[in-house]
């Protein structure tokens, strides 16, 4: 099964016939290279495609899939390539199917509060257009200016607003999709309720491009909240900061849209990276809390009460950012942490663990211990409000490369073990892809994985679409 045929010049000719010359990249190494990786740093996860195709519609995709099945060639679908699990990497070569040309917002249906978009639309652009109509789409991945909505659906992206609004899946009402065998099917629709048959829309969300290629996405819209306020709260230690998170969630009148955590080390790196400086007043940990709503007075009351609670339970200072300038300033810090870490050490691995929120304090203490024992640096930041902590395991500048690989593996295993013990899991929003594939067995029982394999084969009997992601088909036999 794993033996795929090579893409021959005849096949390229056929693809060019289907899509036009300019929409097929072949033999141009510089151009192909772009499609060989996503945003996972480590080169070991990259792989060159044999050919890149850029279809313009479902019919063309259907033809590509039929050709691929006929010729036994793997197809890897690709959005913006901003993923963090290697999901869009063509690990067996073959065809990359890039959705970059399918970038139209097809319809904004204000009466039904839905929009219909193509998969290659930059998620941020949807919200820019919707804002003019006082509407918004609540999915908010952090790579706002680059990621595509199609990738968001494929990965069930989470991001900054999940505490209040949940993750991408909550807003996907329907899909037009090309199956791995090339059929064009419609799932769901502009309907709030639908219990006819299995919920394939939910199955597709987060399927990491292994079960189908989305060609139209129907997203649910919400009225745009008129006011947004952020609190940036300084704490003398991580425990006090994190212990506040469950309290804020359970005790405050208003559910925050986001509760983000940053340790001092991450913040100092981002200060340097952005040429930014806000007095930390001796803080070791920061929380960034966001509230939104329509009534300005209620908002003021809500942030005042959360702020007071924080100050009364050990916070050093509470900064308030309620203008476009100040809000962007605090979020820019949070968003740029991954890039800032990159400037500290290029050799790193970004993890995406998630635990029940009450376990976050314990987890962070354990992570620090594990880092010290394994001689690596770990920067922790992320979505404290939903238990999804991003920990960047970073090679200490000056340590040996050989030791690093060993240390990384050991660190990762130990963190995953601790996470599992707490009822957590190894990815909250980045996905498994092929980067975390080998840890699936540590976190999921074999009967469940076997069921997933059968689902995959039901959709894709020849294992053509994005093979080698999440789990391997071969091991089933």
């Amino acid at each position, binding site marked *: 099964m794993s033996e795929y045929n090579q893409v021959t010049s005849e096949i390229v000719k056929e693809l060019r016939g289907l899509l036009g010359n300019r929409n097929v990249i072949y033999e141009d190494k510089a151009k192909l290279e772009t499609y060989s990786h996503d945003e996972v740093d480590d080169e070991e996860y990259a792989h060159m495609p044999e050919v890149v195709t850029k279809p313009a519609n479902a019919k063309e995709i259907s033809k590509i899939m039929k050709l691929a099945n006929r010729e036994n060639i793997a197809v890897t679908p690709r959005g913006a390539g901003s993923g963090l699990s290697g999901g869009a990497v063509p690990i067996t070569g073959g065809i990359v199917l890039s959705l970059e040309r399918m970038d139209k917002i097809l319809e904004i249906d204000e009466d039904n509060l839905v929009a219909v978009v193509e998969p290659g639309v930059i998620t941020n652009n949807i919200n820019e257009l919707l804002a003019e109509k006082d509407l918004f789409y609540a999915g908010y991945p952090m790579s706002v200016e680059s990621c595509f909505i199609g990738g968001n659906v494929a990965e069930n992206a989470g991001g900054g607003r999940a505490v209040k609004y949940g993750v991408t899946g909550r807003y996907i009402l329907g899909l037009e999709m090309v199956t791995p065998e090339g059929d064009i099917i419609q799932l769901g629709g502009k309907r709030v309720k639908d219990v006819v048959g299995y919920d394939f829309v939910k199955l597709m969300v987060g399927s990491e491009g292994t079960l189908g290629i989305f060609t139209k996405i129907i997203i649910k819209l919400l009225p745009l909240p008129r006011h947004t306020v952020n609190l940036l709260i300084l704490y003398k230690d991580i425990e006090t900061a994190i212990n506040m998170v469950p309290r804020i969630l359970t005790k405050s009148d208003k559910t925050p849209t986001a509760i983000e955590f940053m340790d001092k080390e991450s913040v100092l790196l981002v200060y340097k990276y952005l040429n930014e*400086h806000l007095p930390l007043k001796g803080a070791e940990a920061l929380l960034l809390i966001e509230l939104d709503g329509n009534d300005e007075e209620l908002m*003021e009351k809500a942030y005042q009460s959360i702020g007071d609670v924080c100050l009364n339970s050990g916070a050093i200072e*509470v*900064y*308030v950012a309620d203008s476009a*300038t*100040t809000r962007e300033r605090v979020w820019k810090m949070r968003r740029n942490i991954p890039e800032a870490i990159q400037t500290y050490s290029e050799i790193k691995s970004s993890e995406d663990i998630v635990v029940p929120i009450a376990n976050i304090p314990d987890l962070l203490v354990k992570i620090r211990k594990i880092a010290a024992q394994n001689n690596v640096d770990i920067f922790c930041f992320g979505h404290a409000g939903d238990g999804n902590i991003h920990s960047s395991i970073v090679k200490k500048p000056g340590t040996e490369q050989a030791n690093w690989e060993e240390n990384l593996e050991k660190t990762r295993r130990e963190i995953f073990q601790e996470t599992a013990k707490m009822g957590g899991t190894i990815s909250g929003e980045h996905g498994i892809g092929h980067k975390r594939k080998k840890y699936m067995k540590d976190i999921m029982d074999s009967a469940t994985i076997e069921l997933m394999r059968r689902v995959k084969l039901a959709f894709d009997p020849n294992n053509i679409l994005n093979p080698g992601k999440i789990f391997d088909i071969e091991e089933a036999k």
Partner: protein
Amino acid sequence: MKLIVPIKQVPETSNVKMDPETGTMVRSGVEQIINPLDLYAIEAAIRLKEKFGGEIITLTMGPPSADKALREAIAMGCDRGILLSHKDFAGADTWSTSYVLAKAIEKIGDYDVIFCGERATDGDTGQVGPGIASWLKIPFLTYVSGIDQTNQETMTVERNVEAGYQILKIQKPCLFTVVKEINFPRLPTLKGKKKARDIEIPTWTPQNIDVDPENLGLNGSPTRVVKISKPKVSREGEKLMPESDQEIEDSVGKLIEYFEKLEII
């Protein structure tokens, strides 16, 4: 020390849209914020006060809703605010605006230093700061990037110029327009926000200050906007993508020819 910070409320322009018909900005639904460059002036004043004590008064001329900008400045650390708001002020250009602000500052009186932002992000003229100083007949420095010394009579400051820095001594009272390099503006604190919510901000009209009605608003402004047009950006270019050795050689030849024509080489 008595420090004065005139500020301006401007539309948030990071995502600005232009009306293709009129050539003006689409203002509906656009958030109003403190001119981002004024934040550096506010911070400079707060730091000076932290060092030497005193009082910071912030003022703005604008519609009643501009009171929000003053409250934000107070939340950051200014002590009180004054709103200059009246229909007769409306439509003022930089000449008339600086006239009214200067008259208001004269009424406040007894000030040591006035801090202004370098320019406003909407009008982008950079004229109001120097205008105020001219009306008040006090010395001023633009593009101030650092404050070295503050004495009873004088101040020594760094000024950003094209080739580097100037270090200049200036007689007080004086006015500075400051650049971004001068500091990192602080964020308002929860305590500051509360103070700003509760404080009373007086509104001054032409009746409150000693102004000549002839100099106010659109009628008092010598500037006339005759037409707003969008500059056309036109670029011409040629892309050379040589692959073979011969093509590379030809391309280099073409580049040399091009540079010679432009007298670059």
